[in-house]
Each structure stands twice: as structure tokens, then as C-alpha cells.
């Protein structure tokens, strides 16, 4: 299965490098949203729970752009059929797409975190960065798994651009909630505080539960 996952992931990265359709759109959306918040809140800077809320809601909606496009090439250019013709484990497609979305989210955050620090965040982001990277990784894993599942379901429908967010957004509320709660002490104006252990644990548990759920149901989402 590792060979198949590597082939699929390599192909997805190549396609993204060639078309630049997903990650730049996500990054641009995030930066634009920070600017809109800057004016919408009528505040020069934010900190604490407001900063965490703005940051995670923006990332969630930016992630939706990537989720919507995750299987478009497979659907429109015969990628599903080509994959199903190969003697490959279907779970490899789930793993590869989840890894691709995780990578896209990570690249998005390479742009979004500095942009947020520059445009909105009151305290310096540097002291909080190591812990924030940990929270981002846990949240990315949850968004990637649920996003892949929702995208695979939605791509089979005519209204895929509508169905994917409708499926994914409610399912991702726990991720946003736990990630925002975990990030709040990191973004305090007085400097980073300590994260309550339960929020990273909740994120980890969420990742595990949905990874197992996706593993159990993904085979049924691919038609022969």
C-alpha cells in the first residue's frame, strides 16, 4: 500500500504544482479574510479568545476551498476509473488524499500565520509558535480526515460545491472549538500561557475516531 500511497500523493503534488488551483486560492482567501476582519471588527489588533476565534474560523473556511477541489481531477479526468482499474488497495486513496490535504493545509498556514501576526495579532507570535504548531498539526489532521471523507461523498453529487461544506462544517465544529480553546492562552496579550491538556487530547481523540470511521466507510464511497 505504501507504494500506491506514494504514487497518488506524488501525482497530487505534481498536479497542484502544475495548476496552482488549490493552495494559492486558500492562502489568498485567508489573507483577504484577515483584512476583512481587520476592518469588520474595527480594531487594529486582537488577542486571546477573539484572536483564536478569528484565526480558526478563517482557516476552516480556507480549508473548504481545498476540500471542494480535492477529488475534482479524479472525477473530471477519469482518475477514479484509472485508480479502480489498478490492483491497488482503495484505502490508499483515502490515505493519500488525507496526506495531500494535510500538506495543503500546512502550506496554507505557512502563509496564514505570518499574515495573521502581521495584520491582526497583538502579541508577538514567536513565543507561542512551538505550541501553536502542535495545535495546528492536530487540527490539520482532523480537518484532513473529515474533509477527505466529505469531499469523497460530495464529489458523487451534482451540487458538490454545496454538499461538501454542508457535510464538513458541522462535523468540524469540535475541531474549531478545541483548536480555538487550545490557542486562546497562546495568543494572550500578556504573552503565552499554558494550554489546558484536555483540548489537545480532544483534538487527538477526534482525529483517531474519524480516522477509524473514514477507514471503515471509504471503500463504500468508490463505485466500480
Amino acid at each position, binding site marked *: 500500500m505504501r*507504494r*500506491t500511497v*506514494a*504514487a*497518488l500523493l*506524488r*501525482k497530487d503534488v*505534481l*498536479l497542484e504544482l*502544475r*495548476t496552482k488551483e488549490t493552495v494559492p486560492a486558500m492562502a489568498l482567501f485567508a489573507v483577504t479574510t484577515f483584512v476583512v476582519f481587520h476592518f469588520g471588527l474595527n480594531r487594529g489588533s486582537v488577542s486571546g479568545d477573539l484572536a483564536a476565534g478569528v484565526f480558526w474560523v478563517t482557516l476552516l473556511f480556507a480549508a473548504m476551498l481545498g476540500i471542494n477541489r480535492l477529488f475534482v*481531477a479524479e472525477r473530471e*479526468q*477519469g*482518475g477514479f*476509473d*484509472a*485508480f*479502480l*482499474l*489498478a*490492483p*491497488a488497495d482503495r484505502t490508499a486513496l483515502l490515505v493519500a488524499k488525507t496526506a495531500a490535504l494535510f500538506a495543503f493545509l500546512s502550506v496554507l498556514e505557512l502563509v496564514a500565520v505570518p499574515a495573521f501576526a502581521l495584520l491582526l495579532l497583538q502579541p508577538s507570535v514567536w513565543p507561542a509558535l512551538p505550541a501553536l504548531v502542535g495545535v495546528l498539526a492536530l487540527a490539520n489532521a482532523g480537518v484532513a480526515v473529515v474533509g477527505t471523507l466529505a469531499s469523497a461523498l460530495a464529489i458523487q453529487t451534482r451540487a458538490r460545491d454545496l454538499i461538501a461544506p454542508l457535510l464538513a462544517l458541522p462535523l468540524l465544529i469540535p475541531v474549531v472549538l478545541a483548536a480555538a480553546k487550545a490557542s486562546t492562552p497562546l495568543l494572550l496579550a500578556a504573552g503565552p500561557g499554558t494550554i489546558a491538556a484536555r483540548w489537545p487530547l480532544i483534538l487527538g481523540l477526534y482525529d483517531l475516531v474519524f480516522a477509524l470511521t473514514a477507514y471503515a466507510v471509504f471503500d463504500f464511497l468508490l463505485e466500480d
Partner: protein
Amino acid sequence: MRGRVGLLGHEPLLYRDLTGRENLDYQARLFGVDGARVEELLERTGMARRADEPLRTLSRGMVQRLAVCRTVLHDPALLLLDEPLANLDPAAVEAVEPLIGRGAGRTRVVTSHDPGAGLREADLVLGLRGGRAVIAAGAQEVTEADVRALYR
């Protein structure tokens, strides 16, 4: 079973934004086929020179040649071919003949709307009308007129 079947349908099942070589390399990895096979097929179909151009910039005939490469990449025992020579010029037809033609040494199920060419290549003929088998006989026993009658 999947690894023993090669399917060539109306869609090339190749990514438009990848090059021919990248598409075939990807397929080769899925099937566990050596990269040398990709180069061999590109040479045999005359596509080696244009293999590093994105598919969306190639003509339909060139894409069809690459689709033929994809179909036989894993050396399948059974070929399912739907109008396999569509969009191919005579030189390209000649180039793909040893891969998907009668001389390929593989079992072939070919769907064709060209009765004459189909009969010349076939061992067995199956003619369908309304989803039911109207002709099911050896190619020697079926005439082109019998097949044309299916369309009336």
C-alpha cells in the same frame, strides 16, 4: 484480476495537466511496473518526443496514443477496447497495432461501429440490438450486411 485487464474507452483516463510521461509514470507506480516499460511504450507509439508536454496541449490522436500506452502498460492478458483507433492517423494505427491489434497476442473484446474493420479482425462476433444478442457467431459466418442490418 484487475491487473490482468486493460481498458481503453472513450475517455483516456489521463490527467490533462500532467505530461504524457508523468501520467504513465504514475500508472506504472500504481501497477508496480518498471519505468523502462514507460519509455519503451513511448518509443513504440512515437510519443517519446512529445512525452514532456502537458496533455491539454496535445492533439486527440496523440492523447489516444498515450491512452493506448496506459492500457497495455501492465501487459494485460485481456483488452477491453471501445473504438480503439478513434482519432488515430494511419501511421499511428500502424504504431499501435502490435500493442492492441490482432497481433498483440492478447484476448480482445472490441466495440466498433466500423463493421468491415471489425469483421476483418474478429474471431467471434456479437451484435446487439436493444441490449439483446442478435448475432452471436464466428466471424467467418457473419457478413458485413448482417452487421449493417443491425443499424436499420
